[in-house]
Every structure is written in C-alpha cells, then in structure tokens.
C-alpha cells in the first residue's frame, strides 16, 4: 500500500473497508486468469452475501484462476479517489479493475445498477459493451436479478442465469482455453452462449411497437439459443461449498457462518420471485451440513451460525439437524439462529433450545392482514397459526417480534389494512395476557410494512403497482390504526424507492440510458435512504424521454410479450398465468411437497424435480 493511500485512508470512515488482509483471504502467486468479483455495494453488505462467498471459494479452488473481491467505495472514499486520481482496485492485491480478464458483478437487486455504472466509470472501463475494445475486461454478471437484466443488458457482455456453481466452472474452462488461443471476444461469446445458463445480450436485439411497448427479441447470432435456460445444480448435496470463509475485521451485516440447507421453495407464494426462480427444492443432508459447519467454525472462529433457505421450517430433517448442531457446538458456545421461518412450521420445542444458547428477536411474515388476501397471494398461513406461534415464542421468553407485511397487493382494500392492525392488536394482547412473571419485560412488536413491487417470473408479473400517492395514503392510514397498540413500532418502506425498484424490476433495454444519466446526476447507493435521490432519477427519465409509469403502473395483458421472455426460468408462463387466474378467485395452491402442481413443463424437466 502506498504512502499516499495510507494518508488518504486516514481521512475516510471505516478505512478497513478498503484494506483487505483478512484471515483466510486468498493470496496467489501463479495463475492464468484474473477474475474480479464485484459486489455493487459497500464491503459490509458485499461480504455478507453468501453467493459471492461461494463463487470466491469455487474460483480460487481452481489453479488457473485468481478471484479477487471489489466493493463499491462509500461516498467519502469515492470523493477522495476522484480528487487523487485513484482508480478502483481489488482488495486482495490492490490491482485496478481494468487489468482483470473478467469483471463480474453480483446483481442481487435492482437498486444496485447505478453503483455498477460507478464502479466501471471509476475504473476507466467504458460503460456500454459496444464501446469496449479487445483490451477491456469481459464484463459479466450473475445473481437473482439476472432473471431480468434487460435494463443493464447493453452494459453486460455475458450473464450467468441461475445456480453459478457448475456453469461458472464450465465457463472458466472455456475461458482459459480461449485466452491461450488468442481469438477475439466475439469468438469467446459464441463458444460460451450454448452453455446452459449463459446469456449474451448482444446476440439479441429488442423490438418495440408503435405504442412504445416491448414487442419481442430478434436473434442476431445464429449459433445462440432461442431462449436461455436457467442453470440448475441438480445435486446440491455434492455441489461446491467453501470450507473456509474470509473473516472480516469490521462488523458486517451477517457476521457468522451461514449454512445453505436447501435451495428452492415449495410454497408457491404468488408474489415471491425467489420462490419460483430457485425451484425445484434441493436439500443438503444433515451429515453434510454438520460437517460443513465443523469445518467453517474451525477455520473461522465464528461463534454464531445461521441456517439459510427460503423457508427453513420446511427442511425435511429439521428435527434432527437443529439438536445435532446445538449439541455439536455447545462446547464452543456457538449460537444457532434461524432466519426466514414460516409461522406454521415453527416448532415450540426448538424455540426453547435455541433460546438457551442466545436470545434474539424472531421474525414472521404473514404478508397480508386478512385470510382472504393471504389466500390471494397463496401465503397459506392462518391467524390461528400466527397466534399459536407467537404465544409459544412469548412463553419461551421471547419479547421481541417482527411481523412483515406488504401493502399494495392485488385486490387489496382498506379492510385488509384493518386486518394488519387487528393482527398487531391480537399479538400484543397475547403477550400482555401472559402473567408478568412468565413473560419477558416489555413487548417490542415491530410491524414492518413494505410496498409491493410486482416482479418478473411471478404470478403477479402482469399486475400494476399501486401509485406512490396510494402507498402514502395507505401508510398514513395504517399508522393511525396502529397508534396506541402496546409495544408496537411501525416501519415502512419509502414509496418513491419502491416505485423506482418497480420500474427496473420489469424494465427493458431502453432503461440503460436512464441509469447512466441518473449516475451522471449523482445517483449512487440507491438502496440507502440517505443517498437515494428521487428527483435526480425523475430528471434522468425526463432527459431520456422515458415514462417510468409505463413500467411500474401499467397493468399488462397476459398475452403480451415480456422483455424477460428470453430467459427460461423453467417455471412455465402458462403455470404463472394459471396461478394469476387462481389468485383472482382466491384459490389456494397447496405446497408442492404434498403433490405436484405441474409448474415445470413435465415432459422436458421431469428429471429435475424430486417431487
């Protein structure tokens, strides 16, 4: 590290974000390919992302590749860097991004797009693919948002859709061979585009009709597939999982060992994109998980572990796994926490066990205030389930509960908002009816209400989002209704941020210019409340002649072509249309562990789903 950099770091907040050298950081002396794994947010957020930790381990396990981490510099550091002509560099070796063979961005949510532009710009890399020559790195992306990366399609050379473990390995083999061959990038992209899960945006062009709506894609490269099938790792049990984790010095958001117990979800909640795009359910065995936990705790010294999945209460061997983990690590005093629990599968017996080691708040997600609306969104949870679960939790000593809800769901009326307040009231009453000696000191009941954003590849992908004015009115109404309920705290998301998210979630390629314009206007870190500049976003839309309402507020016809039709997430459009129709009738679709609902095209994908 240069003296200049040391003095510069003394002037910024949390300089350890930029200095690396953590325990278990990979150092390599010889390699053929340089890979920059970029997360478009600060260190603390990027380091908490499990997907990145897996990719880091996977790529560094290869002899021919050195994978280094790059995070977005916070606004103070960015200012210093610009003042001092310092380019964006990797943590492991301080190498500027421009020097890497591959620069890959993890796109886990839409509000990171301006940070991607910023990181490219800070590295002297042209933002649009068409402006990059052979001397520039290959710009790639992967992650949850790849189900619709059309807004940044003109910025990306290659995208990896779905599970990265296998397709990335295959791609890196191909890349290493290509690099030795000396052929041009076009050849590489041609060779790669037929790997399952690989999307090369430049091989397709988007068309729009007279009304200004997307009307379909034209394939430009004969060798490219007509649609890109999401990559699915069939055997999660034997899939790569890192045995070591970088241990950060500073506090990160999820500062613990995270075990991915299964991928996919069988519940079919109609608003949930993750529930559809990670199907089918693939579990890891207890033995494998315990062994992974042992290795990770031994290599890191972490004293906290969490189990990750979309619905941990559904893990088939939960009643075996939890006691085993608790016993295994009692000596080391490692606490086991369970995020994302579903109400109806939360078991009282486990609650006591978990509490013995460490006590923290519990989270439940009823999502809607009335049974009618819960049936519409297919969140098969009853009020009785919720009350029973919270009573069990309260009796076991918990006094801090968070309930997640959404407003703006399809068919919602103010009666459903009343339902949220009624549930809050009932949960509060539940706590306070327990005799003082038996329950915790005071109740902290956080009612967290976010604004519904319709997402691609869900049954609600055709739905219009509520307007910002509607959200404001609903939030004011709820705040009033929740006043006076003992122990209640009301959290809500900002409607203007949810609106921008909705525009990009179902966006097309024309939005790339808006992202670049917004960045030029100073937009960064859009998911951070204090950094989000709504007015600049609106200026950017105007500057580019684009009407954001057309993306967020327009109800779509189930027959119209969608910009993300180019991606085949395996769950068929017909299935989603059917679910959409069923939602209008309030018809519940049961958990597919109980019986197949036919979400995949049975004939083609029969061997993927164990169900």
């Amino acid at each position, binding site marked *: 590290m240069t003296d200049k950099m040391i003095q510069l770091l003394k002037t910024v907040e949390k300089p*350890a974000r930029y200095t690396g*050298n953590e325990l278990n950081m990979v150092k390599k002396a010889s390699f053929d390919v340089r890979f920059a794994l970029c997360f478009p947010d600060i260190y603390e957020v990027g380091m908490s992302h499990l997907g990145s930790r897996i990719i880091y381990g996977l790529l560094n396990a290869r002899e021919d590749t050195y994978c280094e981490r790059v995070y977005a510099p916070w606004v103070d550091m960015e200012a210093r860097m610009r003042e001092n002509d310092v380019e964006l560099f990797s943590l492991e070796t301080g190498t500027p991004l421009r020097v890497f063979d591959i620069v890959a961005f993890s796109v886990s949510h839409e509000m990171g797009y301006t940070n991607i532009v910023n990181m490219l710009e800070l590295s002297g890399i042209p933002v649009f693919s068409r402006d990059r020559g052979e001397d520039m790195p290959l710009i790639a992306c992967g992650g949850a948002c790849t189900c619709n990366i059309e807004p940044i399609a003109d910025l990306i050379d290659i995208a990896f859709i779905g599970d990265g473990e296998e397709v990335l390995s295959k791609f890196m083999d191909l890349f290493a061979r290509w690099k030795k061959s000396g052929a041009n990038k076009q050849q590489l992209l041609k060779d790669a585009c037929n790997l399952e899960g690989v999307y090369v945006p430049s091989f397709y062009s988007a068309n729009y009709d007279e009304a200004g709506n997307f009307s379909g894609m034209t394939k430009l490269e004969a060798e490219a597939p007509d649609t890109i099938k999401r990559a699915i790792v069939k055997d999660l049990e034997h899939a790569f999982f890192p045995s070591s984790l970088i241990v950060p010095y500073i506090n990160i958001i999820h500062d613990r060992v995270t075990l991915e117990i299964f991928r996919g979800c069988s519940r079919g909640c109609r608003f949930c994109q993750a529930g559809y795009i990670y199907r089918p359910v693939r579990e890891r065995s207890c033995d494998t998980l315990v062994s992974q936990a042992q290795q990770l705790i031994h290599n890191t010294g972490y004293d906290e572990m969490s189990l990750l999945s979309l619905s941990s209460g559904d893990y088939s061997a939960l009643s075996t796994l939890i006691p085993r983990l608790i016993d295994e690590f009692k000596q080391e005093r490692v606490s086991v926490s369970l995020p994302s629990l579903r109400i109806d599968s939360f078991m009282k017996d486990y609650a006591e066990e978990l509490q013995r080691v460490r006590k923290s708040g519990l989270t439940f997600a009823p999502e809607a205030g009335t049974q009618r609306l819960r049936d519409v969104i297919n969140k098969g949870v009853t009020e009785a389930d919720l009350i029973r679960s919270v009573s069990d939790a309260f009796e076991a000593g918990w006094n801090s509960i968070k309930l997640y809800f959404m407003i703006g769901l399809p068919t919602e009326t103010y009666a459903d908002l009343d339902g949220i307040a009624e549930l809050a009231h009932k949960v509060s009453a539940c706590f306070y009816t327990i005799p003082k000696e038996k329950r915790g000191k005071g109740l902290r009941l956080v009612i967290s209400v976010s604004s519904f954003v319709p997402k691609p590849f869900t049954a609600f992908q055709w739905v219009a989002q509520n307007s910002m004015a509607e959200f404001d009115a609903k939030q004011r109404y709820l705040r009033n209704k929740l006043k006076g309920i003992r122990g209640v705290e009301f959290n809500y998301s900002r409607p203007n941020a949810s609106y921008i998210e909705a525009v990009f979630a179902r966006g097309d390629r024309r939005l790339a210019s808006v992202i670049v314009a917004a960045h030029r206007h100073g937009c960064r870190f859009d998911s951070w409340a204090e950094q989000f500049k709504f007015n600049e976003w609106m200026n950017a839309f105007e500057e580019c002649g684009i009407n954001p309402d057309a993306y967020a507020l327009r109800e779509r016809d189930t027959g119209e072509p969608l910009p993300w039709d180019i991606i085949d997430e395996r769950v068929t459009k017909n299935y989603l249309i059917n679910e959409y129709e069923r939602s209008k009738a309030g018809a519940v679709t049961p958990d597919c562990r109980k019986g197949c609902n036919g979400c995949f095209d049975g004939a083609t994908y029969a061997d993927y789903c164990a169900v």
Partner: protein
Amino acid sequence: MRIIARFKKMEQVRFISHLDLQRTFQRAFIRAGLPVSYSAGFNPHQLLSFATALTVGHTSEAEWLDVHLDAEVPSDEFIVRVNAVLPDGLEIIEAVEVDASHPSLTAVLCAASYLVNIRLEEQLDKADFEAALHELLSAPIIIPKHTKNGFKDVDIWHMIYTCDIIEYKLYEQNTQITLAITGQLSPDGSLNMDMLMEAFSKKLGKLIVWDVHRKTLFSDLSPLMPAYK
C-alpha cells in the same frame, strides 16, 4: 489461570478499530482451541481485556492483553498456538502467567513511548525544524478536548515528557524526520499524538503527514512493563 501478553499490531491491520481487534482475538482464541473463561449471565463473553486502545491508523509493538483461561496452558505454548492462527500483522511477542490478584492492566499504566515518522513535500533545514519544535515545546499547547458538554480547551504540554529528533533526512523534493516522544498514558489522561502533531504542523506553518508507532508502554506499578523514570 490468567495470562498477560504483549503483541504487535502492524501495517496490515493498522486501520482496524479497537473493537475489531477485540473480536479478532476472540475468534483467534476459538480457532486455537484455547479454554478461554467466559463471564456468567445471559450474554456470556470471553474474559479478555486490553491495557489501552490504540488509535486507528497507528501501529504498535507495545499492545497488551489480559485473558483468563479455564485450564492450564503454559505461556510459551500459548504464544505458539495463538500466533499460528492470527492474521498477518498481529503477533504475540511475549506472554506470562500472572496471579489472579494482579491489578488490571489499564490501572497500572503511566507512560508510553512513540516513534513518529514525519514527511514534508519540500526541503526543510534541520535548524528551522528544531526551532519550530523548540517553540512548540516552550509554551502551553492548547487543544480543544471533546467533552460531554461540547469542547473544552486543555493544555497538553505537561503530558509530554521527552521529544528528540533521532533521524533527519533531507532529500531534493522532500524531508523525512523521525521523532522519539514519550508522554503520559494513564487513567488520569493520555497524550494524544495526532493532536500534538497537528499543533506542530500549525507551528511549523507547513503541511506535514505523519505515522505513529507505539514502542513501549510503561508502568510504575507492575513488573511486567518497564518502569518510567
């Protein structure tokens, strides 16, 4: 049993905070499989404490920790086991077993010595530098100290015990100086090296950059650390 150890915190980890450091050692002890003692109650934590916090950005070879163990671990074995799992930049230099009755490290400190490496992007005659230094040290040095009710002016002059130029390098485009400074470091107050250097920069009337390295901690009350005279 109880072990008191001296360790280095060097360039690779100069920017981690004191709390970060504490967590780093806690995890290192777990990786080393040491039988660390934990406090009782709802939120058990390791019985680990430090003599004093080092300013973020400074390096040191005189940091001290104090840890309780449930079982006997010879001090030389302690050093080997912990160093094997510490990240680059941290290293235990010496360790000694002490009696439970040994006072807390923080309470016994009285002074510290530092090496301050100063750089200027121009040529400066040693005579001019010495003159400015002498001027600084001949008068009260008033620093605004951050207190509960805002800022209070304090004179830090009396906390400076010695200040000597031990190296002076004059180059064409810049000047590099090394100062050896000792000052108070005790429960009653500590000399803030960065504030002293800022005051000196003002007196010199020139832009300087500096790096601080703590060399030794002194104690009048414990035989573990050198006594200050």
